[in-house]
């Protein structure tokens, strides 16, 4: 084992962990007597500095990854690098939201927990080994439970956290159970070895039921992480109860990391074709497309993801229609968006086309959600509520905030020229390029029909902000740090929508040209 390689492959994680320690030390020693706002500002800025350092380290570490005993443990470059960069940027943005928040006095600990959870996110984005995956997931999840509960004076926060923790613990158990079966069947914890060993030519027919049990358990555990229906029950409560910066972190960073993990597993499931021998075997026994059930791990995996996709799209959009709390509305819309993304995973391509479209969607979605929670945070701080009626007359109270809300929500609804539209179009085109059969086409048609439904509930919020008369018309102030986040996110959503090739080209640069 080469420890120098391991160190190089985990440079960004190390940067975050060091930043976390520095934040705690400085907050508890030098700044003990300082005012809360100053402490929050220093802690958040140190955290942001940690993220910037992480980005720099990401640049330094190269694309080699880390292998042990000939098996890849941490991948480098490609989808892992894109997801890691996105996680670091989004973490920085959510940290900036802390500066203006008043929900806690323990700002140092908050920032440290955020950074450690982000390190967990980085780990699972690159992980190629069951053990690393599990450790990374737990590191991320434990951080998220704490963040949800961080508003100590709020009953809702505590309730949300205990629900999240119980569901999370259960889903981790499912995941571990599935992993243990996989290990038992194949004798390996490496994703690529597992996929190779579960190929139909290599696995005993009598063991297939066990493989299916394992895949069902794993999809259940990971479906929980991305809030796919029917494992979504925690999401509305968590989004509603968590303090706004924490909720933004749950909604963006955790989403990006979890989807990066799903992409990694799907890629591994298809990379069995890497091995020419396996490909030849498949070819000799009939083509893979004609008999997908012989693909071992991949076949049940992609089927279950497709089922999750449909259920999430329909349930998320329909449930969002009747919400009166904007945070719950964002939560149900997140479930719906997870559904759209899962279509892209269910019809996944060997070429990086699918991966690029998925990353594009996930990254821009995370960005938009951070902005949405920033808006909710400002409104909540002024009115004490996240009900839809708290947004009444927003365009008079603060025209800029209303304009940002307009841009973000229309982007989520998929209205051009905002980035949400391009992300959807690109993703659905990628799905149809993989397979233009009846089933994928129907899934895409459902997704587009459902996004027509989604316009209704986004407009319900915008209607209150712009159309309906309000009683309260006093101006609403935005503090500078939040303002930076709002303006940056809104501009990014607008610019990336008008010039989609910018981000697309950047993502494409991480993949070797074919």
């Amino acid at each position, binding site marked *: 084992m080469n420890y120098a390689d391991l160190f190089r492959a985990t440079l960004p994680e190390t940067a975050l962990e060091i930043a976390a320690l520095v934040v705690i030390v400085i907050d508890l020693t030098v700044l003990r007597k300082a005012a809360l706002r100053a402490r929050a500002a220093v802690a958040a800025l140190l955290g942001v500095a940690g993220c910037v350092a992480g980005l720099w380290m990401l640049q330094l570490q190269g694309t080699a990854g880390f292998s042990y005993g000939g098996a890849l443990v941490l991948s480098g470059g490609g989808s892992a690098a894109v997801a890691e960069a996105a996680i670091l940027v989004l973490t920085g943005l959510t940290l900036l939201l802390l500066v203006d928040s008043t929900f806690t006095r323990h700002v140092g600990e908050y920032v440290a927990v955020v950074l450690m959870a982000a390190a967990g996110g980085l780990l699972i984005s690159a992980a190629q080994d069951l053990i690393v995956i599990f450790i990374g997931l737990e590191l991320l999840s434990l951080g998220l439970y704490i963040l949800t509960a961080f508003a100590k004076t709020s009953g809702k926060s505590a309730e949300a956290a205990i629900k999240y923790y119980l569901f999370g613990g259960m889903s981790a158990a499912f995941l571990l159970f599935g992993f243990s079966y996989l290990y038992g069947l194949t004798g390996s914890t490496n994703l690529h070895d597992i996929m190779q060993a579960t190929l139909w030519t290599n696995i005993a027919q009598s063991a297939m039921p066990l493989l299916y049990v394992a895949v069902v358990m794993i999809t259940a555990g990971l479906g929980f992480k991305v809030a796919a229906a029917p494992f979504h029950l925690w999401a509305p409560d968590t989004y509603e109860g968590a303090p706004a910066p924490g909720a933004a972190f749950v909604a963006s960073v955790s989403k990006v990391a979890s989807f990066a993990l799903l992409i990694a597993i799907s890629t591994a499931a298809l990379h069995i074709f890497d091995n020419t021998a396996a490909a030849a075997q498949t070819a000799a026994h009939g083509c893979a497309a004609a008999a997908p059930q012989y693909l071992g791990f991949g076949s049940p995996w992609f089927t279950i993801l497709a089922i999750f996709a449909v259920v999430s799209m329909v349930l998320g959009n329909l449930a969002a229609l009747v919400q009166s709390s904007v945070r719950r509305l964002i939560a149900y819309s997140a479930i719906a968006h997870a559904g759209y993304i899962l279509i892209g995973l269910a019809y996944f391509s060997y070429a990086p086309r699918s991966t690029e479209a998925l990353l594009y969607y996930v990254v821009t979605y995370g960005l938009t959600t951070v902005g949405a929670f920033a808006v909710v945070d400002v409104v909540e701080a002024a009115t004490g509520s996240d009900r839809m009626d708290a947004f009444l007359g927003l*365009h008079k109270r603060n025209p800029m905030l209303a*304009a940002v809300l307009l841009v973000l929500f*229309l982007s989520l609804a998929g*209205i*051009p*020229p905002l980035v949400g*539209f*391009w992300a959807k*179009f*690109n993703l*659905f*085109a990628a799905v*149809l*390029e993989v397979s*233009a059969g009846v089933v994928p*086409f129907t899934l*895409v*048609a459902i997704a*587009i*029909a459902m*996004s*027509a439904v989604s*316009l*209704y509930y986004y*407009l319900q919020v915008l*209607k209150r902000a*712009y*159309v*309906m008369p309000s009683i309260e018309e006093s101006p609403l102030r935005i503090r500078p740090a939040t303002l930076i986040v709002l303006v940056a996110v809104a501009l990014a959503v607008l610019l990336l929508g008008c010039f*989609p*090739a910018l981000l*697309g*080209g950047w993502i*494409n640069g991480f993949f070797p040209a074919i």
Partner: protein
Amino acid sequence: MLAWTIYLSFAGALAEALLPKGKAALARWLALAVAVAGLVLAVIAFATGFGRGLNVIVDVPWVPSMGVQYMLAADGISRVLVLLTGLAAVAGVLFSWNIDHRTNEFFAFFLALIGGVFGVFLSFDFFLLFVFYEIAIVPKYFLIAIWGSTRREYGAMKLAIYSFVGSAMVLIGLLAAYTMSGSHSTGLIQLAHAHYPVSFQMWCFPLVFIGFAILAGMWPFHTWAPTGHVAAPTAASMMLAGVVMKLGAYGCLRVAMYLFPKGLDPWGFSFLGIGSWRDVFAILALIAIVYGALVALVQSDFKFVIGYSSVSHMGFVLLGLMTLNQIGMTGAVMQMFSHGILAGLLFAIVGRIVYERTHTRQLADLEGMHLSKTLPFGAWAFVIAGMAAMGLPGFSGFVSELQVVVGAWQTDPWWTIAVGVGIVIAIAYTWRAMQRAFFSDKSPSMHELAGEHGHKLAPITWPEVTGFTLLAGASLVVGLYPKILLGAIEPAIRTMIAGGIR
């Protein structure tokens, strides 16, 4: 140069949004300046492009990885409709001169809508066209919901949902056309040469056609139109009827019929005499013509009369497209222009000239007001506009309806009978509305008399006269010398028919 119509409108919208509050006069003049500049550009482009074919304005790669081009171009049809948009935009600003509530925001949304409409008419890339098409939806919602009248939030939401469902269908068609073509491009011209299998065109054509036709007010998906028009403020209903419904019809022609011409072929079997999608849509258009006219005949709200007459007139457009012959399709485009001008004019008279003064649109209430005496300009304006709309020779409506009727006769004489019925009912409902609103001699009730002595009707202002002159003049010019438009439309239609539409 035509591309500047788009950029100017969006820049104007941005400038309006950034204007400080309370500068209503500045907001108005700025909007007028932007709209006039757009009209001037449209006129110059129309004049210089006369007799020329397709003129590519911009063609640069937008998203190279997916073959999306930022391609703006104009042929005769585009130039005519851009001209219409320019006229309607100027008239819309003039007839909204009295908007005092959040003036700068009103014009910001208005100009953003105009920019989107210009964009649709000039796009020669399916993806780009769709982007502009959707950009035009959102401002409509806010224009109606904020500045509208009767049941405005309901009308606005209904319109937004209908539009978005329609565009969702178009988006599915766009994705299908893109992935099936295999040409790695979304350019309309490239897609038109993709040689789609007939079975694919048979389901993709109706999908995209209906998606666009929802916005063109095709029966039975027209119900958003009357409620939306009635709820909308004057300028927005002028734009809705005048231009936005044309977006739908234009999409039907430019996208659905151009990309999937084989979708119009016979199915190979016939059911109740209906043997192709062409028959289906032609019958729906005929129903719209007659049904819209009949419903307009019994309305008690003046604006609903005009709203349903729009449904009827848009039926002519769709019928003209379904004739698939030179004269009928030329007539359809002429009717787009003509109805755009005249519906705008009628909505301006009802919404601005009459309603803003009488504060009622109920024909029963207007009967007692003797508007022909108290508001002679309104009465004359409606007489002229009504005559033009019912197809009096000398106005644009006559030329276009005649062409559609001739085209229908060449295709199927039975269609002409239904059209004739529709035209006769159109005379009846226009006459009825005119008589009851302006020329009734019913003596006013005591209650109304008491109110009448209290205040006189406000005098006619210069923007109203200017706007009326502009629109009525345009209709008259086209009616007297139709060649001015036909010379642009006919070659473009001929090219399209030669390109595969049969």
